[in-house]
């Protein structure tokens, strides 16, 4: 049995305040995006200006933490300048790495910024060793964020095959049920997609309609769910809605639920993963601090050989429901 490698905790920061909370709560890395469509959380009121990034990097580095910049949408044909500038500014401001998804942008970054460390975004959905080697050998990618399609056992197999390329996996938060970056459901309904616009099921297209007996949540006019009187009406994320198929009404794709792998941390650490990622750049600083602290304690306990602390994150998960997602084979 090889010695356990201590995984880095990679934490979300949608705002400078969240970045501060994350590093103070024990984040090893924070990931951020610029305030435009170059990143996959292109939400109003979120993300960083160049000046805020510069200050954020200084603050994180003072705490011994790294800053990763997500530039993980797919540049629009005919005008890649916005994306090229985002990479150039990240390099200039000495970000510790950029997280990219697009092959063309990876080629650009590898050519023009050879000293900039490249991570592969989950949006590239590199789900096997051949794909990972492609990105590592062609563009010098050092770390791959794995899509949420693999079991823990499959991840361990991948890790053994691709070393020294590092892997990062999601351990907490919102959960895509489709292979990330390979889903156009949002643009089919709303005209805006994660790949092209950095949004999924955007708030601009959401409507809650009061009808007799309860509330209907809609996305671009499509009913995504219905809630009874007094039942909290959840956000209509397309793949977490209730639909009718085969004569039956159900959460066909996935329940409104959050990924929570706290209880699986020992297995995940044994699988040889370099970094654990927490989803939620759209979340507030209290959320970020609570989740980061919980995972900080969990990782530290496993590394010290102590039993896992009993931490209840129910109150901050979606609808209070949690899943270990694709990490367990039965999810499929």
């Amino acid at each position, binding site marked *: 049995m090889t010695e356990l490698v201590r995984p880095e905790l990679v934490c979300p920061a949608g705002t400078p305040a969240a970045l501060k909370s994350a590093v103070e709560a024990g984040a090893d890395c924070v990931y951020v995006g610029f305030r435009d469509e170059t990143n996959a959380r292109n939400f109003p009121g979120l993300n960083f200006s160049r000046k805020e990034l510069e200050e954020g990097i200084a603050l994180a580095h003072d705490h011994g933490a790294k800053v990763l910049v997500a530039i993980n949408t*797919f540049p*629009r*044909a*005919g005008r*890649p300048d916005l994306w090229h500038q985002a990479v150039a500014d990240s390099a200039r401001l000495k970000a510790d790495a950029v997280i990219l*998804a*697009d*092959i*063309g*942008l990876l*080629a*650009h970054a590898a050519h023009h910024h050879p000293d900039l460390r490249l991570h592969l975004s989950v949006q*590239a*959905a*590199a*789900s*096997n*060793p*051949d*794909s990972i*080697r*492609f990105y590592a050998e062609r563009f010098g990618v050092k770390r791959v964020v794995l899509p949420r*399609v*693999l079991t823990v056992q*499959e991840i361990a*197999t991948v890790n053994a095959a691709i070393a020294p390329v590092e892997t990062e996996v999601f351990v907490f938060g919102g959960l895509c*049920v*489709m*292979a990330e*970056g*390979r*889903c*156009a*459901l949002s*643009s*089919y*309904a709303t*005209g805006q997609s994660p*790949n*092209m616009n950095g949004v999924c099921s955007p708030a601009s297209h959401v409507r809650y309609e009061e009808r007799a007996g309860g509330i*209907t949540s809609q996305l*671009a006019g*499509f*009913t*995504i769910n*219905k809630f009874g009187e007094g039942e909290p009406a959840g956000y209509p994320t397309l793949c977490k809605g209730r*639909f*009718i*198929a*085969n004569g*039956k*009404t*159900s959460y*066909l*794709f996935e329940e409104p639920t959050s990924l929570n792998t706290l209880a699986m941390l020992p297995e995940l650490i044994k699988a040889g993963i370099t970094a654990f990622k927490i989803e939620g750049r759209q979340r507030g600083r209290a959320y970020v601090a609570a989740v980061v602290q919980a995972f900080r304690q969990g990782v530290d306990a496993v590394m010290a050989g102590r039993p896992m602390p009993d931490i209840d994150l129910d109150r901050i998960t979606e609808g209070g429901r949690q899943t270990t997602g*694709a990490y367990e*084979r*039965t*999810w*499929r």
Partner: protein
Amino acid sequence: MTHPAKLTLGPVLFNWRPEAFRDFYFRIADEACVDTVCVGEVVCSKRTPFLAPVLPEVIERLTSAGKEVVLSSLALIMTEREANEARQLATADAGFLVEANDISVASMLAGRPFVAGPLLNIYNEGTLAALEELGAVRTCLPAELPADILVTLAGAAKGEIEIQAFGRLPLAISARCYHARSRNLAKDGCQYVCAEDPDGMAVDTLDDEPFLAVNGTQTMSYHYLDLLHELPALRARGINRFRLWPQNVDMVAVAALYRAVLDGAVEPADAADQLAALCPRAEFSNGYVHGREGHLFVEADL
């Protein structure tokens, strides 16, 4: 126009019974006015063993009929077995182009001519150039791109550009099987229930509005893409190859309609009426190419 327009029949994305699959392709070989026919399992590796026995005779029949055969790869490769099957496909060197629908397959094909499939993320000139450098001689672009980007990429391409023009659009792929889930089954014990829906399983909203379709681990549009109206404008702007996705309808007749519009022999509006008659249960959309929501049918000219 210097280049004659070409039609590609995409791979059957659904789980058709092997006999139905074979008979479909035999008829395509004998009767359909398509230039290229893609075959191979794209969606779920659990289906591959059923198709394998009939594939050789299908390929033989198509080749004999003068069709260009393209072998399509799986879209989501997760296990070593799936990777090994893809490697066999990529290295067989049987004289057919292979269509890579996962970047791993493109990497296995590096240095040899191949087709970059519609399930790769090719959104801009940089990515297109990287894939062409790898060996892509033809690229089928993703479903959600608007016409201006399709045209920009056609202008930038060294090889051929193909766009999707008919059928339910492949919108998403997952590790989870929603067909199995709809029957309270897990993927491991799926009982191949996806075979019960040869055109996919309709997914309606709680207000009974048709919305999506499920094909095992793949999620598709409920609506059938119909670009008959747009074909002349797209042709004029440099797009010369169009993909028809097989549905459980008379695809020979569907191909004939697209061919007739491309040849200027039939007006798009007349062809659209005939298409609706050929697909009596279908609703149609063309929103993406107009830069709109994918499910919409936009009447305006491109």
